[in-house]
């Protein structure tokens, strides 16, 4: 869902940059002096894992592919603000070094694939997971459903930006983007739940960090 330059207008790109810059600045403030012994390597490996996983496009219906965003995973493990920082790092490196996602569109991409899904994913997970009596089941369902919503809502945000830019009418962009990403989001949900279950099986203590 990385927006290349040219898809969105300069005012939309500028608004995206302002929103992303403000969010990243606040995320630094919110997480400063809070990273503990476990969070430091976890932030490193999550950034590395999300970058690598984003390279692995999986096929979905009709000659289309999708890949993990990873924002829900990062936010569930480390909290939404640290999640925003991780996603911003991944998206900045992808744009600057790998030319995936435009330079002017970087702010919009950080907003769509970082800020918006980190908060939606985190709070949906925190809302859904406790509804289940079995902790593991709650985690799996909560993270899977939350991750699915992050992808669909991110694609909706992208569609709105395309429409405001005059690139494509909202009535066309929104159903097309949301419909396509409702399928891609299933992959996001499955991968997020699988990674969390791996963490639960190997290092359950890492699941308590986001409360700090």
């Amino acid at each position, binding site marked *: 869902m990385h927006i*290349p330059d040219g898809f969105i207008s300069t005012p939309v790109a500028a608004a995206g940059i302002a929103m992303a810059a403000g969010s990243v600045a606040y995320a630094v403030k919110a997480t400063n002096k809070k990273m503990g012994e476990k969070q430091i390597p976890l932030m490193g490996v999550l950034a590395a894992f999300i970058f690598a996983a984003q390279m692995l496009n999986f096929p979905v219906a009709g000659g289309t592919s999708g890949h993990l965003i990873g924002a829900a995973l990062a936010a569930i493990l480390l909290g939404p603000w640290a999640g925003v920082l991780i996603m911003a790092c991944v998206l900045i490196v992808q744009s600057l070094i790998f030319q995936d996602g435009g330079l002017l569109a970087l702010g919009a991409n950080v907003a769509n694939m970082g800020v918006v899904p980190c908060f939606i994913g985190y709070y949906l997970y925190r809302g859904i997971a406790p509804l289940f009596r079995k902790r593991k089941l709650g985690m799996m369902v909560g993270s899977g459903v939350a991750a699915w919503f992050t992808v669909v809502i991110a694609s909706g945000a992208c569609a709105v930006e395309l429409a405001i830019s005059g690139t494509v009418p909202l009535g066309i962009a929104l159903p097309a*983007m949301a419909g396509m*990403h409702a399928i891609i989001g299933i992959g996001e949900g499955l991968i997020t739940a699988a990674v969390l279950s791996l963490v639960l099986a190997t290092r359950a203590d890492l699941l308590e960090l986001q409360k700090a």
Partner: protein
Amino acid sequence: MKSEMKFKWWYGALILALLLAISSPLASSSPDGLERVAEDKGFIGAALEPFFKILPDYVIPCVTNEALATILAGIVGTLILFGIGYGLARLLRAKGEA
């Protein structure tokens, strides 16, 4: 202390990320969701060329074997992001953390 020599949990996680990077040539090369919508709805042509190129399309340019070029780009990116994530978290570390 002896514990410093132990295999730390995050080594395993970093190895897992590198294994994903190594399997990147297996990724689907079909257009992603946004590209597909852009093609179907006729605005793919609006995309501009990047202002500059370093490692475009996740390949190391001088490597002729495409799979190897992708793997190497994946490893480079994965290590860069580990370094940035780890380094940033260290800058934000709590008081008393080494």
